[in-house]
C-alpha cells in the first residue's frame, strides 16, 4: 500500500544577510506487499514500505531532494537481518529497529545548474545503459539481492554518495563525470535467507567431508584511492542516441578466494572474499525505425574473476576479461502496446578451463505490455530464459489504478529449470504477489 502525501508550501525564510525563498514539495508513498509461496502456501513476504520524499527549491537555483525509507518486513527470510550488511559503507548503511524494522536514507542530493552544466552532489542513483532488466553498464550503483531481481530496480539499486557533474558541450552532446568515494557493494542474502544464492556460478562449494570457513570480506576503505571514477559521453547524432562509457571501479561482487589447509582434525577450505578493481569500457546506441526501436549496449570489463572447479588451482578462481552485450528490439506496432525482445550474451574472453559458468552465457528476454482503459489497466508478461542451463523466470502481472494515487496489482513470479542455474536455484520460491500502493 502506498500512501502519497502531496503538499506544496511556499515558505519565506529570512536567512541573514540574504533572503531565500524556499518552495517545499513533500510526498509520501506507502506500499503493502504480500507474497505467498505457491507450492506450500506459506507467506514469503508481508511488507510495509513508507517512502517520504522532500524536494526544496531555493531562490538561488539549488534544488535539494531527500528520500527516506521505512521498511517493515514481518516474514523471516527477507528481513534486514537476513542480509549481509558489511557490504555497505558506514555512511550508507541503514539503521535497524529490531528484527523487522529498517530505516534508511535512500537519497539526499543537491542539484545546481552552472550555466549549461549541471552538478548533482550527494547520495544518488546514476543509471547507465539501454537494457531493461539486464545489467551491462548499469553497474555504477550496486544492487540489493534481497529478492534476487524481483524488486523494482529503483528500489534494489543502492544509492551512493557521488559527485556527478554533467558538462553540456552543445545541444546534442554531454560529458558526465562521476566521482564516487562511497564503497558500498552488492547486498547479498545470508545463507538462511529466502533468496540466498546457491548456484555454483557464484557460490564456491567444498568436496564432501571438507569443512568450510568463510572469513570476513576484505573491502576497500581508502576514501580517495579506493573511490570509483566514471565518464560518459552522450550524443544525439543523425537520429542515433549514442554513449561511450568508462568506469574504473570495484566489482560489486567479492571474489571468493579459497585455500585448502590440513590439520589433525581434517581438511578445511578457507574462503577469503575480497573486492577487486576492474576497468569497464562500453557504449550504447538506440534509434527508431518505423514501429521498431533498436537499442543496445556493450561493455568490456578487465580483471574479472570466475570460480573454477579445477582441484589443482591455487585459489579457486581464475582471472579473465569479460565482454557483455545486450541487443534489444521494441515493437510499437499494436495500439497502446509494447513487444520487447532482448538478447544478452556474456563472454569470458580468455576461455579459462574449469570455470563454473558458461564461457558464453546467453539469456533471452521477452516483454509484452498492453494498456487498457486510458492506461488505468495494464497487463504485462516478462519472460527471462537462460539458454545455457535452460532455466528462467516468468512474471505475469496485472496493475489497476483505481485513482491517481491508489493502485493495486497481482502477479506471479515463476522460476523454472536447472537448480544449478541463476534462475533455477530459486525454483522453490515461486510465488503469488499482491500489492497496494497509496500516495498522499
Amino acid at each position, binding site marked *: 500500500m502506498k500512501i*502519497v502525501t*502531496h503538499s506544496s508550501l511556499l515558505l519565506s525564510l529570512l536567512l541573514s544577510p540574504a533572503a531565500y525563498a524556499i518552495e517545499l514539495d513533500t*510526498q509520501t*508513498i506507502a506500499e503493502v506487499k504480500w507474497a505467498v509461496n505457491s507450492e506450500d502456501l506459506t507467506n514469503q513476504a508481508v511488507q510495509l514500505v513508507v517512502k517520504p520524499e522532500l524536494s526544496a527549491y531555493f531562490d538561488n537555483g539549488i534544488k535539494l531532494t531527500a528520500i527516506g525509507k521505512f521498511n517493515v518486513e514481518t516474514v523471516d527470510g527477507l528481513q534486514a537481518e537476513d542480509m549481509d550488511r558489511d557490504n555497505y559503507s558506514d555512511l550508507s548503511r541503514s539503521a535497524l529497529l529490531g528484527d523487522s524494522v529498517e530505516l534508511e536514507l535512500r537519497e539526499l542530493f543537491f*542539484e545546481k545548474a552552472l550555466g*549549461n552544466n*549541471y552538478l*548533482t552532489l550527494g547520495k544518488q*542513483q546514476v*543509471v547507465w*545503459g*539501454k537494457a*531493461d532488466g539486464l545489467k551491462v553498464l548499469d553497474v555504477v550503483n550496486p544492487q540489493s539481492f534481497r529478492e534476487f531481481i524481483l524488486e*523494482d*530496480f*529503483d528500489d534494489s539499486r543502492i544509492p551512493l554518495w557521488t559527485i556527478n557533474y*554533467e558538462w*553540456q558541450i552543445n*545541444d*546534442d552532446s*554531454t560529458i558526465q563525470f562521476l566521482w564516487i568515494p562511497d564503497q558500498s557493494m552488492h547486498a547479498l542474502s545470508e545463507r538462511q535467507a529466502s533468496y540466498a544464492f546457491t548456484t555454483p556460478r557464484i557460490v564456491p562449494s567444498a568436496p564432501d567431508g571438507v569443512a568450510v570457513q568463510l572469513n570476513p570480506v576484505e573491502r576497500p576503505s581508502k576514501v580517495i584511492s579506493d573511490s570509483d571514477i566514471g565518464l560518459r559521453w*552522450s550524443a*544525439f547524432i543523425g*537520429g542515433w*542516441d549514442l554513449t561511450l562509457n568508462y568506469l574504473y571501479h570495484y566489482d560489486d561482487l567479492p571474489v571468493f578466494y579459497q585455500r585448502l589447509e590440513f590439520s589433525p582434525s581434517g581438511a578445511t577450505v578457507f574462503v577469503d572474499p575480497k573486492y577487486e578493481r576492474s576497468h569497464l569500457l562500453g557504449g550504447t546506441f*538506440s*534509434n*527508431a525505425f*518505423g*514501429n*521498431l*526501436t533498436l*537499442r543496445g549496449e556493450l561493455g568490456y570489463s578487465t580483471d574479472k574473476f570466475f570460480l573454477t572447479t579445477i582441484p589443482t588451482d591455487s585459489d579457486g578462481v581464475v582471472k579473465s576479461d569479460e565482454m557483455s552485450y545486450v541487443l534489444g528490439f*521494441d515493437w*510499437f*506496432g499494436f*495500439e*497502446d502496446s509494447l513487444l520487447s525482445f532482448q538478447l544478452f550474451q556474456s563472454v569470458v574472453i580468455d576461455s579459462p578451463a574449469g570455470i563454473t559458468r558458461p564461457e558464453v552465457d546467453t539469456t533471452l528476454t521477452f516483454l509484452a505490455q498492453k*494498456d487498457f*482503459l*486510458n*492506461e*488505468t489497466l495494464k497487463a504485462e508478461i516478462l519472460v527471462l530464459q537462460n539458454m545455457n542451463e535452460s532455466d528462467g523466470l516468468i512474471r505475469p502481472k496485472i496493475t489497476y*489504478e483505481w*485513482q*491517481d*494515487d491508489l*493502485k493495486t496489482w497481482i502477479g506471479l513470479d515463476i522460476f523454472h529449470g536447472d537448480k544449478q542455474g541463476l534462475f533455477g536455484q530459486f525454483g522453490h520460491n515461486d510465488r503469488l504477489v499482491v500489492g497496494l*500502493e497509496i*500516495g498522499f
Partner: protein
Amino acid sequence: MKQIKLITLVLASLSPALFSSLALADLPSGDDIAKNINARDEGIAVARNLRMEMIDRRGKSRVRETRAFRKYFGDEKRTAIFYLTPKNVKDTAFLTYDYEDHAVDDDQWLYLPAMRKVRRISASDRGDYFLGTDFSYEDIKLETRVSIKDYTRKTIGEDEVDGVHCYLVEEKTIDTETAEELGHLRRENCVDDAIWIVRKSVLWDLQNKPLKTIYFKEISKVQGIWTAHKIEVENHKTGHHTTFTFSNVDYEKGVNDAVFTQGSLRRGL
C-alpha cells in the same frame, strides 16, 4: 417556345447544385486554409502550465499538472512536457523533435521515473493515445497546427462554432498506411477564418465511424499571439473525455535550449 420552356425547366432543376458549386468556388481552398493556419504566428518559444483532466464514462476524474514547452529551431519544432503531479506520474517527461523534412521520422523520447531511464519511442504510431489521454501523439505535436503532408483537403462549406463563423474543411488521409498510423480515416475541421485557428475538429476511425471530437476553446491573445487556453476531446468510442487547460502562457521570456535535451528529461525541472 417549347424549347425555351425546356431550357428553363432544366436550369431550374440544376440551379441549387449550380449555386452551391458557385458558392463553394468562392470559398478559399482547403490547402489555402491549411497554409493560413500554419502561417499563424505561434511565437518562437512558449512556456506554460498544462493541466490535463481525464474523465471516464462513469465520471471518474484523473488530473495531471504539467509544465509544457515548445520551441522552433529554424523549421524544426521541439516539444517537451514535464509531469509535476500526481505522484504516480511525477517526473515522467516527454520530448519530441518534429522535422520540417517530411521524409524524416520525428524523434521521440519518454523518461519513465520508475526505470530512471530515457527511452527512445517509435514515432510511427502517431495515432496512439498520449499517456492515458484522448489526444494522440500527433495531436500533442501539432497543437493548433494541421498536417499538410498527411491529408488531401477540400472546403465543403461554412458553419459556426460558439457563434464564430468558420470554414468547414474535410481532410482525408492520403493513403491507408497514413490512416493506420494516425488511427483515423478522415476529419472535418471548422476553421475560424478571422484568425485562422481550428475551433472544432471531428474525426472518423478506420471504419469511418465517429472517433472523437476536439474543441479548441477560450481563444484569446497572449502577448499578441492567438492562444487556445482550453482544448477538449470527446472520445465517441469509449465515452472518455480529456481537457487540456493552459495557464501562465508566456511567449516572451524564451525557453532555454537545454530544456529540449535528454538530460533535462532525466533531471526534470
